[in-house]
């Protein structure tokens, strides 16, 4: 599973992308977040408050209870501020 981070989440985690081994117990984005938080204090900080984080699975906005599978690209980022 390919995980991507942008803006201050990327800075906290110290990487813009990482591949993680698919864990059969991970059914939803929420399950994935629980696992990612255990990776480092940076991950923990970035994903501490999910109300501040937007999630996209395969580049489509999804809610935290959206299913994820082995070949998905899952991105975490703050609310957008372009324009």
């Amino acid at each position, binding site marked *: 599973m390919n995980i*991507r981070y*942008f*803006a201050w989440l990327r800075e906290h985690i110290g990487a813009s992308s990482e591949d993680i081994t698919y864990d059969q117990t991970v059914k939803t984005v929420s399950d994935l977040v629980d696992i990612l938080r255990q990776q480092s204090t940076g991950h923990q900080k970035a994903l501490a408050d999910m109300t501040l984080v937007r999630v*996209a699975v395969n580049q489509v*906005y999804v809610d935290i209870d959206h299913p994820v599978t082995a070949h998905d690209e899952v991105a975490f*980022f703050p609310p*957008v*501020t*372009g*324009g």
Partner: protein
Amino acid sequence: MTIRVQEDDFDLTRIYSELREAPTGQHTPGAISLFVGLVRDMNNNHTVAAMTLEHYPGMTETRLTAIRDAAMTRWPLGKAIIIHRVGKLYPNDQIVLVGATSSHRQAATEATAFMMDYLKTEAPFWKSEQTADGVTEWVSTRESDMTARTRWQETK
């Protein structure tokens, strides 16, 4: 090219010339609406020395295309265009251009406002601002941007 995400600057004159030409087989537009966003030298009472725009390559283009398509469906437009820059920018630099043509004045102006409001809330771009004393901070979202978008869901 109706959707562009680029580091390079864009040329309003050239884009206007393109918009002014009728799409193949259609009549001359009658109405052209343009919006350009520029880097401000001041934001929330602090001086901005530079700005960096990060984005999510791939998803950005997909979202911008969806926003443009939604505008084309909702209003009788001839052409519609969205250009957004990424990378490091300085005060007064052009950031974004949105434009629409129509034979109806209100279609062109409303579609332009619509595309900007959706771009502001859905297109995956993130701004960080560098102050004069070298401090870099991520720009926060504004409540008003979400309010602006929501109005399109209520009424036409």
